[in-house]
């Protein structure tokens, strides 16, 4: 037995050493790439702090060819469009996921899911075309606005872009909840709605939160569709009614201006600084969401054990 095992053991030993290390390298490379990107953004973006006064950098006017580098309108623009998109995409996306996982018959789910995922594969520039030719003229007439190229148009489009992401992941999470949970709830006399709202959704909470988080990530980083429909006017968007006015997002600013900017100029550094701000914002969203997920897991574990 020992002798016949030996040659196989040496072969397996080589694989045992090589394959786990390769997998480990893949895992670490993700960390390495994020760190390298962050380092690059820091290197190109931080000189801004020496070149533009903090007061001017967080000022209300963005007009780079005359050296007005106030990034506040861009930050508020991005946040407003993202919040609007989430207000549309979260209820709509989770509603669709619940319908598909809990209510729809099996055959309908088999049809719906690939269709929703196909929707997620639509290039955003195509949606931008629809936005500029159909959505924004319609919004202008329907809401009697001066122009349809507004934050609202951006939010609607981005909501549409985020919905497939949210539906797909949230539906997987709901589907993974054991059927016995539902049977137990029904046995206790809970209605279908009570089962969904109090049992299935809380049990799938971490997956649903991940879905929302990825939806936000998709939304805040989206560039092309937003650049086409939001009008790109760098107005400070603080009031709730700002959603009916044009805004300029951080991503659209970088995309529109990076191509023509002189390498190493103040404007170039400020654009990287905006990229850094975007990076930090999505980091905050990620950390906040994962801390909620971990907390809920601990409590669930406590309840279950």
């Amino acid at each position: 037995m020992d002798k016949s095992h030996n040659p196989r053991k040496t072969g397996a030993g080589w694989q045992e050493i090589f394959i786990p290390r390769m997998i480990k390298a893949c895992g670490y490379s993700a960390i390495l790439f994020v760190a390298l990107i962050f380092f690059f953004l820091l290197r190109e973006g931080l000189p801004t702090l020496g070149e533009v006064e903090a007061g001017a950098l967080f000022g209300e006017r963005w007009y780079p060819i005359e050296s007005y580098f106030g990034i506040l309108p861009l930050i508020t623009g991005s946040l407003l469009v993202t919040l609007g998109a989430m207000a549309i995409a979260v209820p709509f996306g989770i509603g669709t996921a619940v319908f598909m996982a809990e209510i729809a018959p099996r055959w309908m789910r088999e049809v719906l899911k690939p269709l929703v995922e196909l929707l997620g594969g639509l290039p955003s520039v195509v949606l931008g075309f629809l936005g500029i030719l159909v959505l924004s003229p319609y919004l202008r007439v329907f809401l009697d606005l001066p122009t349809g190229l507004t934050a609202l148009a951006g939010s609607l489009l981005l909501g549409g872009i985020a919905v497939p992401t949210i539906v797909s992941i949230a539906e997987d999470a709901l589907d993974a909840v054991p059927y016995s949970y539902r049977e137990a709830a029904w046995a206790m006399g809970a209605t279908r709605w009570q089962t969904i709202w109090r049992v299935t959704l809380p049990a799938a909470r971490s997956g649903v939160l991940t879905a929302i988080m990825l939806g936000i990530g998709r939304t805040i980083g989206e560039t092309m569709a937003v650049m086409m429909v939001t009008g790109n006017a760098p107005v400070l968007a603080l009031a709730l009614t700002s959603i009916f006015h044009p805004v300029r997002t951080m991503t659209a600013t970088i995309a529109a201006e990076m191509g023509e900017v002189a390498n190493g100029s103040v404007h170039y550094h400020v654009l990287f600084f905006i990229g850094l701000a975007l990076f930090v914002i999505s980091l905050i969203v990620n950390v906040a969401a994962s801390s909620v997920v971990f907390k809920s897991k601990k409590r669930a574990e406590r309840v279950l054990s």
Partner: protein
Amino acid sequence: MKFTILLALFLGSWLVACATPAGGEGGGGNASPPEATAYIENKGSDTIVNLALAWAEAYQGGRTGIRISVTGGGSGTGIAALINGTVDIANASRQIKQEEIEQALANGVEPVEFVIARDAIAVIVHPDNPVTQLTLRQLSDIYSGTINNWSQVGGEDRPIVRLSRETNSGTHVYFLETVLRLGDKNDKTLFSTDTLLLPSSEGIINEVRQNPNAIGYDGLGYVPDDLKIIAVAAIEGGDYVLPMISTVNDKSYPVARDLYMYTAGQPSSAVKDYLEWILSDEAQEIVAELGFVPIK
């Protein structure tokens, strides 16, 4: 813009490559010395690059023994190359600056100016908008945010939606200097913050086409027939003038600029022939085809 530059580089090198065998044969047929083939290096403004390419193609198509290479990069780049003696002709959508002339003279180069075409910026509105004419001062007030309703300039009671190209467009800068600041160098007027900055000419035309509140501007050659062009008066009480070839050439339309070519000293034989051809009727027809204004 990036694409235009790449295209220019590509076409430029292609033209050189294609002209090589043809020019060689032609040179061999006409005269035995190989230096019969003349090279012209042409570089500068991105506004002019398409026009310069069209000219180079048409000129080389009918002739042998000449090779023209056209590249973009911007007016400043072209003039800098002329000062350094690396190009024969520099294209510029603005006039050469005094300090550039001084640099050139210090380098032993005397820049000679040729006006090769003109470019008019048309102000456009929705065809249903009853406003047909505005003064430069009114345009300035509209774009800087002082006038916010069409009724203040004789139109319906509608809010004004201002459309502009992005800040990296040369047209944007020209409009800022000539219209918003009325040509005054010390004026620090800026576009109103709620001006929509659209990334393309097409975006502006599309919004003006469907929105009766909108006002926009664009190169005359890009404006389609279904939009309304505003007649502009340079001063209050002056004549309102529509942009067209005749009004741009007699300087009565105020929002138009000359496009230039510069040579180092009085041009030599091949360059001289080329520039003379550019000012001919045949070449100026190409100017009109590309949406610019011919100089005669």
